[in-house]
């Protein structure tokens, strides 16, 4: 058996698992591992500027590829700095492995320098965690971590590595584990046949059906099957924020996003449906609005790989535990060939009704001559990227504008923190995307608030020559906070205004990038063209937008799904 140090085992196991990139930051407890990284070329390490950035990069990497993102950090502050990133991945079910250094085993519990109980700190926001106690256990712990992270409902896994077990001076036999299955962990992938039959029956009998697709469809790589099912049954399709792209946003059957800032047609169709097929979506509070008034006419079929997601907030009629991919395949088999003309005729009234709602054109907005509207910025990005970019987003108004005005034709193109809503996510996530797809266009839609939460990573972008396009919608305020203050707090702008904004162009230049400021609607198109023509360099677009624009449509608190404001003055 090959003999090597614990540190070498960490790196070797990563290599044997096929890990190509590790995002991290060195420190005392992991210096041995960094030394082992130095000695090889199979695993590339990307040095970040803050550990939170490393976690978001690994996250963006994972979201855009479907493979597991990897983070390596030191003990104490290095480890705790990743917690927001881990929680972000946890809420959105993103596969991630975080290797954290730990003080030497004999000092654990002594409040040693840079000691933190990482397994304890991260426990509520990980799928699982390991504290490795012996060097020989390293390969198995890491291999299991990857297996757990990217099977079943994916999620982050922490592997805590005390410094003494990775000591470069002590050698141990290395054996890559052939089998990492566990008796206590067997995710259900295939749906129960009785439930499949029930679901198919409900779907075929429905007169006003709707397909409600979520991130689970993307995690399961089920886009083609979902599309086939939607087309065969002529179903209108609405998508959660996490599911955008699972079903093409430019498909004729797409109604766009649903929920708090969903389209009128999506929320109307949900509320009036007689059958809802939820594929990998979890009836989150940003979708349902008041659960008491949620979709009163619908028989709900809920397909989810996580049994705990079923009937958590909304009691469903036909639960199906399984992966979206497997269950959709089973549903297609169960339904078989059907007379598509007859099916179309059956749904004719329903589609007519949907056309009426669509006719309201809820995403329509008024452009202005002298001030740039955020919506037109997103549309301009869409135009200049031919709708084919990887779009990472931060959190706030700009996130909702991006979700609504940039329809995604493919899965894994829309990278955003949906569940946790982490400001500062966008830039590092886009960096992870760019590392995974060096030839692709990686765009960040952000705002003046969010971008400043991880702006230090501009330095990492220079080091690794990441030609990211940062589209910052600068409204000199925390837009979403301000919008709520306008609506619910009589426009008392408590701490939502920042009157000490940096000069973002100079800031970008200071980091060695290109900065472009855009003030006027007439300049927008040319500036975008210049931005996307720069193939080799990062461009920071500081776009001054209308400070008073609100995101609409918007559900009205405590109402049903379709109780919405359509503009500052109109409501349903």
């Amino acid at each position, binding site marked *: 058996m090959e003999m090597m140090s614990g540190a070498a085992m960490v790196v070797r196991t990563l290599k044997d698992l096929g890990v190509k990139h590790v995002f991290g930051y060195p420190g005392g407890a992991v210096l041995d591992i960094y030394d082992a990284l130095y000695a090889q070329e199979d695993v590339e390490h990307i040095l970040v500027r803050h550990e939170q950035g490393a976690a978001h990069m690994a996250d963006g990497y994972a979201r855009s590829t479907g493979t597991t993102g990897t983070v390596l950090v030191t003990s104490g502050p290095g480890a705790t700095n990743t917690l927001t990133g881990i929680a972000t991945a946890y809420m959105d079910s993103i596969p991630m492995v975080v290797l954290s250094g730990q003080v030497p085993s004999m000092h654990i519990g002594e409040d040693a320098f840079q000691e933190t109980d990482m397994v304890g700190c991260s426990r509520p926001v990980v799928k699982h965690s390991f504290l490795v106690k012996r060097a020989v256990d390293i390969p198995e712990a890491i291999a299991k971590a990857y297996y757990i992270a990217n099977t079943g409902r994916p999620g982050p896994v922490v592997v805590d590595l005390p410094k003494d077990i990775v000591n470069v001076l002590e050698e141990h036999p290395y054996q890559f584990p052939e089998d990492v299955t566990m008796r*206590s962990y067997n995710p259900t992938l295939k749906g129960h046949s009785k439930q499949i039959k029930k679901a198919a029956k409900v779907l075929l009998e429905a007169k006003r059906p709707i397909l409600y697709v979520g991130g689970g469809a993307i995690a399961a790589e089920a886009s083609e099957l979902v599309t086939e099912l939607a087309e065969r049954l002529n179903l209108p399709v609405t998508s959660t924020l996490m599911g955008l792209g699972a079903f093409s946003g430019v498909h004729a059957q797409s109604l766009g996003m649903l929920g708090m800032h969903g389209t009128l047609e999506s929320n109307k169709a949900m509320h009036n449906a007689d059958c809802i097929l939820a594929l990998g979506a979890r009836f989150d509070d940003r979708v349902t609005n008041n659960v008491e008034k949620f979709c009163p006419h619908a028989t709900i079929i809920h397909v989810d790989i*996580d049994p705990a997601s079923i009937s958590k907030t909304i009691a469903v009629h036909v639960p199906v535990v399984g992966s979206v991919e497997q269950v959709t395949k089973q549903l297609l088999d169960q339904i078989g060939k059907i007379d598509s003309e007859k099916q179309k005729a059956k749904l004719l009234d329903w589609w007519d009704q949907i056309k009426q709602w669509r006719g309201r054109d809820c995403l329509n907005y008024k452009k202005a001559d002298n001030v740039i509207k955020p919506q037109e910025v997103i549309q301009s990005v869409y135009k200049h990227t031919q709708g084919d970019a990887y779009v990472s987003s931060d959190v706030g108004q700009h996130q909702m504008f991006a979700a609504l005005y940039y329809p995604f034709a493919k899965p894994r193109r829309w990278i955003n923190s949906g569940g946790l809503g982490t400001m500062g996510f966008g830039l590092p996530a886009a960096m992870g995307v760019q590392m995974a797809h060096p030839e692709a266009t990686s765009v960040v839609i952000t705002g003046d608030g969010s971008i400043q939460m991880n702006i230090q990573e501009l330095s990492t972008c220079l080091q690794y020559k990441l030609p990211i396009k940062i589209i910052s919608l600068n409204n000199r305020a925390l837009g979403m906070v301000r919008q709520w203050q306008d609506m619910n707090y009589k426009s008392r702008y408590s701490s939502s205004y920042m009157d000490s904004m940096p000069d973002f162009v100079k800031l970008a230049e200071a980091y060695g990038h290109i900065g472009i400021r855009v003030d006027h609607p007439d300049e927008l198109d040319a500036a975008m063209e210049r931005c996307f023509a720069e193939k080799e360099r990062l461009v920071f677009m500081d776009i001054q937008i209308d400070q008073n624009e609100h995101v609409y449509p918007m559900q009205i608190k405590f109402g049903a799904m379709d109780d919405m404001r359509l503009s500052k003055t109109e409501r349903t």
Partner: protein
Amino acid sequence: MKRIISVLMENAPGALSRIVGVFSQRGYNVDSLCVAATDDKSLSRLTITTQADDKVIEQITKQVNKLIDVLKVTDLTDGNHVERELMLIKVATRSELVRAEVNRNVDIFRAQIIDVDLNNYTIQVTGTSDKLDAFANVLSQSTEIIEASRTGICGLARGDKALRP
């Protein structure tokens, strides 16, 4: 409504804290908790009593089942089961009268005196939680309870049903 959840899990470090974590993170309460390794030393069996309605209990069992270390979860209160709790209770016995009264109650409740000191008895009693409550209540009427320690409920399903890997 009182529920007794029985959990079979890996006897691994951190497993217990994960289970307790599910309860605290999601706002469920724990009335009692009883845990030890089983005859198979690689496994632990844990019994949790909680107060919850059907919807909450469904979430609790699902969330606990979701933990990687957990093999099986069952709600014992769903079916026929046996449940027992053990209490050690120390009472003051400063007069002959009190000693006699305590002795009588020990007989009635089929408890055992397991330690005797100049001024007190330590008594062991097993049974359902109600019986333990009643015993403590009766003792408190004739003497002073110095301290008591209870294990919390542990239970098994009746008949062929079993929690096995």
